[in-house]
């Protein structure tokens, strides 16, 4: 038996092999992020006989036609101005925190004062109603009222000032045409969302010293900390997200 000195295996090609694997992986996989605009669709409800009449000033009407043009509150608008327009709608009459309450401006919703004394009073009232309610039915009714007022109480606690809230009927209503392009639809949705998000950012920055997104991630990470949840609720109480979509129209026959 001859003894040969053990020669080292040349590992130089190892890198090439690994590179090949790496490149194969890069090609076959997608870094597909599940990012996008989140929306909750309204559940199907039977049509209401007499829908409640909503004041015109409480609705911000955004219409998009089949040629991707915008009609906002009866006027033609460029998509770049939509965000400012929607922001104005939401705070025109002042929230009492960052935007001082102003003598009301026609055609924008009137924000109603939520004061500490009133809220404390209401919470106490509904608590006693709830405790003394005779039937379960009544109890449920009072409970939902109580919850609403408690939310406002929490908001005031964290804001440390009284604020003005949007009337519950105030909303941004968007309607598009069957021929509107998907891109335009997304841009409009995006700008409307941006309006709410920017206002929320400003308020979160001023009160809690972080951006709204940051607050949300902190809430996700530390569910155990009740503060973050209450802060989120506070911000949402002042700037609720209210974008609704009407059933699209088909006006294609008008273009021919």
């Amino acid at each position: 038996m001859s003894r040969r000195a053990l020669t080292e295996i040349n590992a130089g090609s190892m890198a090439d092999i690994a590179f090949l694997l790496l490149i194969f992986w890069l090609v076959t996989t997608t870094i597909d992020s599940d990012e996008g605009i989140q929306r909750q669709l309204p559940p199907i409800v039977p049509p209401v006989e007499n829908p409640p009449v909503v004041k015109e000033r409480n609705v911000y009407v955004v219409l998009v036609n089949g040629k991707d043009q915008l009609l906002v509150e009866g006027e033609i608008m460029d998509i770049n101005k939509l965000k400012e327009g929607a922001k104005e709608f939401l705070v025109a009459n002042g929230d009492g925190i960052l935007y001082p309450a102003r003598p009301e401006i026609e055609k924008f919703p009137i924000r109603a004062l939520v004061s500490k004394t009133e809220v404390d009073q209401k919470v106490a009232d509904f608590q006693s109603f709830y405790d003394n309610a005779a039937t379960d039915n009544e109890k449920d009714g009072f409970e939902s009222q109580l919850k609403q007022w408690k939310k406002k109480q929490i908001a005031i606690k964290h804001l440390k000032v009284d604020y003005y809230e949007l009337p519950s009927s105030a909303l941004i209503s968007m309607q598009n045409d069957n021929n509107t392009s998907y891109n335009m639809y997304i841009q409009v949705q995006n700008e409307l969302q941006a309006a709410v998000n920017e206002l929320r950012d400003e308020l979160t920055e001023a009160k809690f010293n972080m951006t709204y997104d940051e607050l949300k991630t902190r809430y996700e990470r530390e569910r155990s900390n009740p503060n973050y949840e209450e802060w989120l609720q506070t911000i949402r109480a002042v700037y609720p997200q209210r974008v609704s979509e009407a059933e699209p129209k088909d006006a294609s026959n008008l273009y021919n």
Partner: protein
Amino acid sequence: MAKFGGKIKKEMGAISTASLPDIVFMLLFFFMVATVLRTEDEKVKVMKPEASEVEKLEKKHLIKYINIGPPQDKERYGSNPVIQLNDNFATAADIQTWVDQERLTLADAEQSQMWVSLKVDQDTKMKVVTDVKQELRQANALKLLYSTNTRDRTGN
């Protein structure tokens, strides 16, 4: 210069490449962990629109995908936008059954948390999308994600 140049000539040893494979493997593993394998063929071409107000969904297994766009294979299927469910072309009428089937793939407790991600080509007309949305409402799948690419907010 002469002092350094002349007498002692030191050979530069070759840089050892022994650790190169390790580095590349590390990269490989990183990519394997960070990415997902493509699970289905994309039969439609989708150029996603861009948006700034995006939110990310964390739980991937809760997301079901609907692709809408012009077919990749134009000659066979034409260029009108079509709906792709899993690996097949479908019509809006198929969506309710599809939602029910996909729901069953989730655990009981998670069925109500299902998200539907719409990957729609940006030039598609809203008619198709609206029909899909109506069917989703009928099927009571109300959590919807309009899948987009990210861009900066305008006007800042």
